């Protein structure tokens, strides 16, 4: 048995990079340090189906195994003939694959979008308006004396997040947890909230009101009402005093605030609050609790290639951007989309009913190693070698620090990037021959 050390975990945005994989006969037989979710990603859940060959769905609904060339040819044919294709997902693949994906979207005049559209998309909108005072998880661990978890529950969703960055000892926080104050804002008494020194039990969907009160109080204004969003005014004043006296504070925030009620305006107000807290002597930063291990990576790649982080529409040939109009869900729910390509995400499990209805109506191509709700809707399934397990690539942690994902075992399958590259080449060939035909037509047609 071989032990492979310092392996980054290809599951959640915490991207723990201290996993040890036990490998025997080209199979991962055990892990050390990983949480249970990470462990099962490496080991494969025993009831999960892993695809071994590409498949195409026949007219009777049956999936039939085909060779990779045929699957790619068919997928390309669908996308080239679509008027409003969507290329969606990109969060559980490498940045290198994302980069090819953006080029493919441009070549197809398609819309490219990632899972941020249903998680931290509103945070990205707020970042355009107000900026992004971010730091690294290492800084939080070494410096933070006040940590806020707002509308997220890392004890369950990012299981090693608190042990690595809150309970752990840091350079300036030698005792670890006793040197830190924990504020949790959550309507529920979650397992994270149970650990809090101050739990602000905000009414569901009232985060904007609470932030408005906090920001006004910070500047010395009286809060207009005695009770805001279910939190007594005096408790808000108390929390504000604590925040203002922090040496180094960090806000972690999750989907309970990005996807409820005021959405991007919650985050807008939250970011402004953090920026303003830097005026009282301490330092304040924030980090969004990203879900997929490389959801952040796609947003980076997409921004440095197109200028926009997600929801990028290439219909005109150049990138355009307006979530609400150019989001995957917008196109699906308005029934605009006429073909969908999914990679590194599971919209079948996460999208609302109306979007799924459209996915049923149009051709769906899934690049997906496992059987998922999305592959149940797919017409073509191409399994790739998995990044971080059987192929290499770069991923960005939730704080924007990049890691090289390791190849632990060999696979016969192509990596996501190779599949995409082949598709891109084929699309370019088709477009080149189409434009040749056009110019021949122009030369041979009689003058008007």
């Amino acid at each position: 048995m071989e032990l492979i050390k310092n392996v980054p975990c290809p599951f959640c945005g915490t991207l723990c990079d201290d996993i040890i994989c036990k490998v025997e006969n080209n199979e991962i037989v055990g892990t050390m340090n990983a949480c249970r979710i990470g462990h099962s990603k490496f080991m494969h859940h025993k009831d999960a189906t892993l695809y071994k060959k590409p498949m195409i769905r026949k007219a009777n609904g049956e999936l039939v195994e085909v060779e990779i060339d045929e699957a790619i040819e068919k997928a390309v044919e669908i996308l080239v003939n679509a008027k409003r294709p969507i290329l969606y997902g990109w969060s559980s693949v490498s940045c290198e694959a994302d980069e090819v994906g953006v080029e493919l979207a441009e070549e197809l005049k398609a819309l490219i979008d990632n899972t941020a559209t249903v998680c931290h998309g509103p945070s990205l909108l707020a970042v355009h308006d107000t900026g992004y005072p971010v730091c690294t998880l290492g800084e939080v661990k070494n410096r933070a004396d006040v940590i806020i978890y707002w509308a997220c529950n890392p004890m369950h969703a990012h299981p090693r997040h608190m042990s690595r960055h809150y309970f752990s000892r840091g350079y300036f926080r030698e005792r670890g947890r006793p040197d830190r104050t924990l504020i949790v804002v959550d309507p529920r008494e979650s397992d994270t909230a149970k650990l809090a020194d101050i739990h602000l039990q905000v009414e569901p969907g009232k985060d904007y009101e609470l932030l408005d009160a906090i920001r006004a109080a910070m500047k010395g204004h009286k809060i207009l009402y005695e009770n805001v969003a279910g939190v007594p005014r005096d408790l808000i004043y108390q929390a504000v005093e604590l925040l203002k006296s922090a040496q180094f504070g960090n806000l972690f925030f999750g989907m309970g605030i990005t996807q409820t009620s005021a959405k991007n305006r919650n985050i807008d107000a939250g970011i402004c609050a953090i920026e303003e807290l830097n005026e009282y002597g301490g330092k304040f930063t924030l980090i969004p609790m990203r879900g997929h291990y490389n959801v952040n990576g796609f947003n980076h790649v997409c921004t440095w290639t197109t200028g926009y982080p997600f929801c990028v529409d290439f219909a005109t040939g150049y990138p355009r951007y307006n979530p609400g109009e150019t989001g995957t869900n917008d196109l699906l729910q308005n029934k605009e989309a006429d073909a969908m390509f999914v990679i590194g995400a599971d919209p079948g499990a996460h999208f609302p009913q109306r979007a799924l209805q459209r996915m049923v109506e149009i051709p769906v191509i899934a690049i997906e190693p496992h059987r998922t709700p999305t592959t149940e809707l797919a017409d073509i399934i191409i399994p790739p070698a998995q990044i971080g397990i059987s192929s290499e690539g770069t991923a960005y942690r939730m704080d924007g620090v990049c890691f090289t994902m390791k190849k632990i075992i060999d696979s016969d399958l192509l990596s996501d990037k190779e599949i995409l590259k082949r598709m891109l080449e084929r699309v370019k060939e088709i477009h080149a021959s189409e434009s040749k035909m056009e110019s021949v037509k122009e030369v041979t047609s009689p003058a008007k």
Partner: protein
Amino acid sequence: MIKGTGDMMSKIILTPKEQPQVPLEVDTILPDTLAGKTIDEIKSMNILYGNTEVELQEFFDVEGESGEDPSELQIEFNGDVYNTKRIGQGMTTGEIVVKGNASMYVGAKMKGGKITVEGDVAGWAGQNMQGGEIVVMGNAGDYLGSAYRGDWRGMSGGKITVHGNAGREIAEYMLGGKIHIIGNVKMLPGIHMNGGILIIDGNVISRTGGEMKGGTIIVNGRIGEFLPGFEYLGVRKDIDVDGEVMQGLFYKFRGDFATKGADGVVYTATAKNAHIVP
């Protein structure tokens, strides 16, 4: 009869054939660009259909007569164009009438002229509008009179009137001009507003004037829930709004003090709003 429609005006009538599922974009079809063109030339002008360009005549029958002067030209969309975007985007003069519903970005970046939509408009109508007038007889979607994503300079001039209801985040980052909603409004009207006037005759769900720094919002209906970052200044009678007197009793608030240097004003009719006074 619509004001400005005199006998002098030349008129191009675009009668929609079936609206496709994949939207059209017609920002090329403005009085500014149609003036001086023959009907045949107009028929073969390009519009966007999904990711391809097609000729206008593929989706519209084109009739009427153009003129040399764009300010004397009216374009009529003679039917429901619910899946046609960017009607009147960037127009500077003349008139557009839509005899049905219209999709997103009606009159976005508009500088002058007038647009009347007899049905509903989808989101972002009047986005970054600088001048001219938009009248919507039906309802308006979200982000009416707002800013482009990430822009902190929204609508700066002109007037928008909506006879029905409007959606979320209307008048976002508004700088100047006037918006008048006769019906109800969803949450966050006047978010980040920095100037201009927003009048809402109906009710607002919540968060009126969130993070506003300037400008005036008047709500004649009921505000469901109000923000704690405002300061209550008392009752005012017959208020003066941009030279016009609005009669009645109003609660006056100033804020939103969540934002630094805030000096926005919100008036709400006293009749239905005692519950938001501290």
